[in-house]
């Protein structure tokens, strides 16, 4: 997509007309990969130096294709329309977890949502439950504090393997495979209705990270982690709303992991 042809060439020009005629729909109609789309982006803006509260701003992005991502549309706005638009992204390919945001009301990575799926009228806002720094950028410090609270590293017995390996059977590795996929994007935690109202809840992401070590046969820190997770701000705050499972861009069964930690605590014997 040549950047020069992208933004606001002439309103109602040939490309814009094509785009509006061929607007994709999630529910009906086939969208050809070569279709040209005009996308209306409604972005929730907030600049703490100027604004008292957030407001919506609309951008029209032309000459997009169904295979472009929401992130591509945001890039077009930031690079060619309004450089003050703030959002995070790093790898832009669903690995780093930087660009979690609320797209059309659902938590997602902007780099994973195709315009062909999201449609041509798209709303984008910052993930909820964390303080907004600017526009789509939130302060992740509370999220990472909760992540650190579950000691997300291997706690080993005193037997130092030296330069050797800590071996593990494929079956033991498989037990916690699902929760190794977490990229700490915060999509799960900021989709959780309990977290929205009660920020002291440790949150799905931290529990997923704890699960990854609790069910690791090489780890010996279960007791310390359960001290954190068994607290009233731990796993018991979970109401199995399943928002976290729906939100996870890596397809981790987050709610199941939380329930498994609950069962470990319930079955714990001295």
């Amino acid at each position, binding site marked *: 997509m040549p950047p020069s042809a992208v933004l606001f060439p002439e309103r109602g020009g040939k490309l814009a007309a094509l785009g509006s005629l061929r607007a994709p729909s999630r529910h009906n109609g086939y969208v050809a990969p070569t279709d040209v789309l005009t996308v209306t982006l409604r972005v929730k803006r907030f600049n703490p130096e100027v604004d008292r509260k957030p407001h919506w701003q609309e951008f029209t992005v032309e000459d997009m294709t169904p295979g472009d991502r929401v992130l591509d549309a945001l890039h077009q706005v930031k690079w060619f329309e309004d450089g003050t638009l703030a959002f995070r992204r790093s790898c832009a390919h669903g690995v780093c977890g930087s660009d979690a945001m609320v797209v059309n009301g659902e938590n997602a990575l902007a780099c994973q949502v195709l315009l062909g799926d999201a449609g041509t009228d798209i709303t984008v806002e910052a993930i909820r439950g964390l303080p907004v720094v600017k526009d789509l950028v939130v302060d992740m410090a509370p999220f990472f504090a909760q992540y650190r609270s579950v000691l997300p590293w291997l*706690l*080993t*017995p*005193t037997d*130092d393997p*030296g*330069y050797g390996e800590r071996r593990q059977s494929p079956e033991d590795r498989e037990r916690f495979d699902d929760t190794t996929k977490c990229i700490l994007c915060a999509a799960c935690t900021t989709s959780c209705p*309990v977290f929205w*109202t*009660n920020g002291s*809840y440790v949150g799905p992401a931290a529990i997923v990270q704890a699960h990854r070590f609790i069910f690791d046969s090489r780890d*010996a*820190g*279960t*007791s*310390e982690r*359960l*001290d954190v997770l*068994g*607290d*009233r701000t*731990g796993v*018991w*705050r979970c*109401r199995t709303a399943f928002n976290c499972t729906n939100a996870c861009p890596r397809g981790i069964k987050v709610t199941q992991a939380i329930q498994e930690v*609950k069962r470990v*605590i*319930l079955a*714990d*014997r*001295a």
Partner: protein
Amino acid sequence: MSTGVSTDAPVHVASRTTRGRRPRQNFETWSWFFMRISGLVLVFLALVHFALTHIVNDVVETDAVFVADRWENPLWRLFDWTLLALALLHGLNGLRWSIDDYVRSPARRAWVKAGVYTLSGVLFAYGTFTIVTFA
């Protein structure tokens, strides 16, 4: 085995093998477990109650005489008391969770909880009194 690197950092001792520690369950654990079990039992109790008072018997005939006939059998009194106790406790515990989440000021939370607990206690006492003394 020395790696030539300072190892002043504290070594975490394997807790799984630590003897004499207490189990992890606390009040919140059992409160969660109670919700799972009472929820299952309540489905059964509520459906039976609903079927008897609305389907098997016409609801317009569900009056004091109907209740008196039914409570001739103490097992039905036990059934209704169990339904009352579990429904109240299940609802009360759910409210307690929600109050903890939504009422963020400690003082206000204490007042709201005191009110909810008192109301639940009164309802439970009144219901129990009715079931036991109804003649």
